[in-house]
């Protein structure tokens, strides 16, 4: 049975339909990559899955509980088994890196402080930040922040790891390191991961299954090979990086021509 299942999800913002009857199943122990361009609704879908917003209709169940109708207490219980690393890392700026990772452990568990210190050290070591625990988020580079966010997401040993644009704004080397880390986590901890991204390269590196989102509905779902073989024109366009509205070159050229002439005409 799938660990997350989204059924007929409809989301509207001020009358504009962002997600239109979306169905998606995420299998336990797999890395599912949610791929889509800007404005395709992938961030919206993510916020829905995390229970941060209420849908207009449809249901989302995580581990068999429908989070759109369940009580706040049930939602909290489910949230403890989901680790999230946001796009902007969203580390608490007032806390050191250690305290950021330790926060949920201190508040949601009855572990002894020495045990918590050990767990925090381990989680930071997993993402390669073992020696940086005392630093504050503002003292870190972008890539370190993202990795720290992953460490924090892992703090409670979640069954599901959700990563929003883990490689956005990072240089290719750091992005590749993060991809390695995600695959490593899946292989060592049998974690279920949902990764939202628009980077084709990283998607095809890490994914067991890819879901392509376009204009609020799913265009294609399948393994890497199935997606590569997909003949849907939109999918092909995304894979081959074809611009959606090719620039009207003659119009641009004419504009530049006029601009140059007007500059030359000036005394």
């Amino acid at each position, binding site marked *: 049975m799938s660990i997350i299942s989204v059924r007929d999800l409809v989301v509207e913002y001020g009358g504009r339909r962002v997600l239109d009857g979306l169905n998606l199943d995420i299998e336990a122990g797999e890395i599912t990559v949610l791929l889509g361009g800007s404005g395709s609704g992938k961030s919206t879908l993510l*916020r829905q899955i*995390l229970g*941060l917003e209420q849908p207009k209709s449809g249901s989302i169940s995580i581990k068999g509980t429908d989070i759109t109708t369940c009580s706040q207490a049930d939602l909290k219980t489910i*949230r403890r088994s989901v680790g999230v690393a946001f796009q902007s890392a*969203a*580390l608490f700026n007032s806390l050191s890196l250690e305290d950021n990772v330790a926060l949920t452990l*201190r*508040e949601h568990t009855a572990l002894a402080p020495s045990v918590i210190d050990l767990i925090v050290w381990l989680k930071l070591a997993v993402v390669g930040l073992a020696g940086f625990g005392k630093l504050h988020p503002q003292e870190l580079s972008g890539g370190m922040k993202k990795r720290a966010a992953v460490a924090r997401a892992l703090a409670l040993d979640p069954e599901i790891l959700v990563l929003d644009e883990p490689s956005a704004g990072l240089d290719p080397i750091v992005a590749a390191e993060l991809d390695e880390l995600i695959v490593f986590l899946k292989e060592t901890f049998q974690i279920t991961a949902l990764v939202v991204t628009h980077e084709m390269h990283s998607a095809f590196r890490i994914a067991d299954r890819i879901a392509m989102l376009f204009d609020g509905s799913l265009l294609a779902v399948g393994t890497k090979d199935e997606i590569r073989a997909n003949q849907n024109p939109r999918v092909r366009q995304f894979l081959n990086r074809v611009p959606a509205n090719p620039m009207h070159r003659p119009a641009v050229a004419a504009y530049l021509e006029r601009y140059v002439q007007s500059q030359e005409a000036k005394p």
Partner: protein
Amino acid sequence: MANVLEIAGRETLSQLDYIGSLNIQLWATLRGMRAALPLVGNRHRWRAAVHQMLEIGVDALPMVALMAMCSGFILAMQGASELRRFGALHFVIDLVAVGFTRELGPLLTAIAVSGRSGSAFAAEIGTMTVTEEISALKVMAFEPVEFVLAPKYLAALVAVPCLSIVGAFFGILAGGLFMFFSTHLDLLLYFRYVLTSIELRDVVAAMIKSLAFATIIAHVGCLEGLRVRGGPDAVGRSTTSAVVRSTFLVIVADAIFTTIFYFVGKT
């Protein structure tokens, strides 16, 4: 004409929406407040509340004391220049004592705190909203109201009345210094006169006002922060708006309370 009505209607609705949100937030915070209390609550929230108390109260002490002393001198001198003409210079003591206990102590403190801490709340929470820290708190199974708002509100409820007392004391002290230098009235004698002119009712009224002001400042600041949508410029606007709105509401509330106490006091 229809346009004017439309604008008036929209403005009224948005103001009502604001007041409504403020009330909802107030009740939610009161419900979450238990967690911030010492002994019965969560010690992390209590620690955050104490930290806030120091920030709102202790750090503002020099400023409030200086503001109150300056206002004390002003009130004493303005009063003296008129009262001297009737040979009633000693009424300056009553003017300063009653004026500061009932009115200026709480009001000056509220204005200082709304400038210092109301804006800080809005900026802090606004930044947390923009950087997804509030969303992160939710997905980490924390209640933002309990985690962020309750300690701040509790701290304001403790710190603002304390500051008001300090403010009133320094205002009255300034009046005493004025009397000492202008009429060589002994300071101890001055304070004895002060104590005979203040009634317990004045002090209670001042405390009620201070609690109301603390509520307004904390909740307007937090609500402005939570309503931030967009980027860093929105945080700036919310900070300004927090100070403007809370100062305005403090003065409106002061007028209402003073009217109530005036009519209650007559019977």
